[in-house]
């Protein structure tokens, strides 16, 4: 406490006393430059307010010589991240050059109560957030050190969920789908999303399952804890998607019940078939995943031996996909949107799979899915020259069609080997089925290069391992088959038939040539060992000499071809082939046909059509067709007549007529 005398003295010179004691001199301090303050520092040290004779000058000098304190936050040394409820120790030092009394201010940005001491110690952050914590130190004159900031990121502990995703695979048998034989299979390599239970649109995390269907998900603890697991019918590598063509291409997904992540860290999701145990499906949740996994199985087989980069594949399945043919007034787009897909098929861009219960549904018919996948493979990675159209076991077809369909059938057995029995279920309650064994080399009454049965049995035997059949000495696995399909078969100057495949295979695995010849000789599939991709010298005419040679050649500028008439357009003998070797000369190619029957001409090079003539009637003309020297072409002559046998003479004339 001050003495009375002091009070008197101060009272006599109040203005001086207040100033000397450090009261507000803000106006004069604000005018002091840093340079001034530094240069006058020594004077400040010596000013104790005792020189009352020069009060005004002294006042100005004290104010201008005040120095800002110097602050440092020693802990934390940098920004920090912590979990909710954790502590951070805060310490600071602050020195005032003038020895002034200091004030301290910690502002925790709402993360904790503010503090007015230099070192508040351990501070607990109870809520998640990002907090900009500031420390400010001021001297008695209000002059502050630079504000120091430490950012504290406080996160809630992450939620985690692990589990396995499976789907119902209903077994397809000779007696239809067997709902008493349902296997829980892993949903392999599919995408998984975690969404909020109260908002299915809010994706909290995503991942994919592994080969066993296992998944692991994490999401921030400040997110919702009530969540739903969503399995998406799409694999990641390769990318195969199953979508609904009758719902604008929405991708199928299947969801769990709501999960409280605060109570569980494990959630298995089993996607059920929805069969009610009696006579109907209540839902079809497993169907898209069954189709997806069959297609994935096909891709996985190739990936097991070759580093294949598969183009994305879209599979369209719907419970409304019915064997209804596209209407005459219906666009293809409208037909697919209505589910009028005709049958399960590959249309050049996507797979369409039947799904109408009690009529024909193919989602559990693995071999059908892979058969169609085989067409995708041919079109996207290899090459398919097939004219398409109806076909089946025992048919004698255009050899391009026979190869494509035989390839699809064989692949269905190869992928699921040793289950080589193709099953197609249908009917009321899915209780009907027809089957065939792709490994049955003796199934066809008329084996040959025109038979998909012969093609499928041959290709399956090329692949399979171990056999008690004397004619089956091959077991190449899928690798060489892949090499041929994407190599020589894709680039053959001929057409994609069993001849081009076998010729390429003989070159790919020359050590197995004898075994290949033994196999193709069985049942006379090939009458003689395959000489080239054109089947030159082939003797198996299927009972009709008109079917040979497989590829005709011009003899002195013309060739007469014999056709088999009929209502179809893809049967053996309805389409004939003529070789044309380019020599840099332009030609006019014409047809003259007997019985006023209709034929069409098309010229292809490496499977690509480069010229055509398709008018009504049997007289066609392709004028001034410029050939490239050394190039190989095939003239495809399509007979559209109905007469049992008729002929067409194809002529080659140099230059324009």
């Amino acid at each position, binding site marked *: 406490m001050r003495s009375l005398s002091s009070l008197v003295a101060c009272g006599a010179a109040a203005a001086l006393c207040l100033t000397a004691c450090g009261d507000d001199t803000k106006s004069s301090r604000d005018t002091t430059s840093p340079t001034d303050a530094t240069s006058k520092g020594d004077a400040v040290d010596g000013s104790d307010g005792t020189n009352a004779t020069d009060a005004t000058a002294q006042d100005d000098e004290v104010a201008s010589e005040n120095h800002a304190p110097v602050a440092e936050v020693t802990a934390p040394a940098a920004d920090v991240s912590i979990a909710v409820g954790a502590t951070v120790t805060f310490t600071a030092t602050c020195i005032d050059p003038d020895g002034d009394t200091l004030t301290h201010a910690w502002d925790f940005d709402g993360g904790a109560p503010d503090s007015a001491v230099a070192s508040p110690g351990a501070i607990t952050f109870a809520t998640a957030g990002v907090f900009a914590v500031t420390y400010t130190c001021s001297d008695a004159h209000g002059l502050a050190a630079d504000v120091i900031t430490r950012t504290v990121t406080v996160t809630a502990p992450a939620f985690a969920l692990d589990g396995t995703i499976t789907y119902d695979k209903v077994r397809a048998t000779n007696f239809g789908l067997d709902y008493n034989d349902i296997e829980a299979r892993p949903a392999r390599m599919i995408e998984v*999303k975690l969404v909020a239970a109260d908002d*299915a*649109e*809010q994706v909290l995390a995503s991942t994919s399952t592994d080969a066993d269907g296992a998944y692991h998900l994490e999401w921030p603890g400040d997110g919702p804890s009530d969540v739903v697991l*969503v399995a998406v019918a799409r694999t990641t590598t390769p990318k195969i998607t199953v979508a609904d063509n009758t*719902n*604008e291409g*929405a991708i199928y*997904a*299947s*969801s769990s019940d709501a999960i409280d992540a605060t109570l569980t860290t494990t959630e298995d999701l*089993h*996607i*059920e078939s929805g069969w009610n145990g009696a006579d109907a499906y209540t*839902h*079809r*949740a497993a169907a898209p995943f069954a189709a997806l996994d069959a297609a994935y199985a096909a891709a996985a087989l190739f990936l097991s031996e070759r580093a294949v980069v598969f183009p994305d594949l879209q599979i369209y399945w719907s419970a409304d996909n*019915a064997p*209804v*043919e596209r209407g005459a007034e219906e666009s293809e787009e409208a037909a697919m949107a*209505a589910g*009028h897909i*005709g*049958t399960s*098929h590959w*249309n*050049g861009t996507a797979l369409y799979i039947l799904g*109408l219960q*009690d*009529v*024909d549904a193919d989602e559990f018919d693995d071999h059908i899915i892979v*058969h*169609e996948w085989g067409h995708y493979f041919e079109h996207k990675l290899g090459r398919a020259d*097939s004219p398409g*159209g*109806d076909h*089946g076991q*025992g048919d004698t077809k255009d050899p391009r069609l026979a190869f494509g*369909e035989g390839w699809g*059938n064989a692949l269905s057995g190869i992928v699921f080997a040793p289950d080589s029995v193709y099953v*197609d279920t249908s*009917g009321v309650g899915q209780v009907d089925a*027809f089957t*065939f064994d792709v490994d049955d080399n003796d*199934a*066809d009454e*008329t084996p040959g290069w025109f038979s998909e049965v012969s093609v499928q049995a041959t290709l399956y035997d090329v692949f399979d391992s171990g056999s008690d059949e004397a004619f089956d000495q091959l077991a190449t696995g899928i690798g060489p088959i892949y090499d041929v399909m994407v190599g020589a078969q894709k680039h053959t100057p001929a057409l994609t038939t069993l001849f081009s495949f076998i010729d390429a295979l003989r070159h790919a695995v020359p050590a197995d040539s004898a075994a290949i010849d033994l196999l193709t000789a069985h049942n006379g599939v090939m009458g003689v060992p395959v000489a080239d991709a054109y089947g030159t010298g082939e003797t198996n005419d299927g009972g009709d000499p008109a079917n040979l040679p497989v590829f005709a050649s011009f003899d002195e500028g013309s060739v007469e071809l014999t056709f088999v008439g*009929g209502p179809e357009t893809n049967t053996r003998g309805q389409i004939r082939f003529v070789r044309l070797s380019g020599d840099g000369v332009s030609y006019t190619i014409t047809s003259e046909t007997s019985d006023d029957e209709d034929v*069409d001409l098309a010229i292809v090079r490496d499977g*690509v*059509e*480069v*010229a055509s*003539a*398709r*008018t009504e009637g049997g007289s*066609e003309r*392709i004028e*001034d067709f410029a050939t490239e020297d050394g190039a190989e072409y095939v003239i495809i002559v*399509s007979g559209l007549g109905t007469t049992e046998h008729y002929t067409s003479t194809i002529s080659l004339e140099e230059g324009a007529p």
Partner: protein
Amino acid sequence: MKTLLLLSAIVFGACQSERAAAPIAAPANVEAPAASAGKPGAPVVITVALDAARPKSLAHVSVRFTQPGSAIAIQSSGVRGVTVDAPALQRDAVAADELVTLDVPFVAGEPMGESLFVVAVSGRFASGERRTVRAFVVDRGAKQAKAPTTTSDGERLEIVPAR
């Protein structure tokens, strides 16, 4: 009474594309469209003409066989409002190009979605058993709405509960 002639010829794009008119000497490198190819089926062409008059209607079913076969069964049925109560037509054998016709009475009830008349033909042919199923639209009822969910990552999902 309305009569609908419906043909199921199992004929796909490639066959049609080869028939399509094209100018002589088309430009080079015109790639033909990829051919559609369906799953293996029976060697048949199924045609149905529907006399759809409620309450009783008649389907005139024609099945042309393109190959000889045996143990033939032609079974008609209906779904989504169409009721058929008729036994399968059995034939011990058929010849190539033989046409088998039959009239099948059916009841066209209130369609539940798109009601369909269905014909399934099975039998033994050159290499074994084969089967083809074809369906024909009788009536179009209200389509069941299927609202997709658009998630925050931009996916349009048709989410079905797993059970």
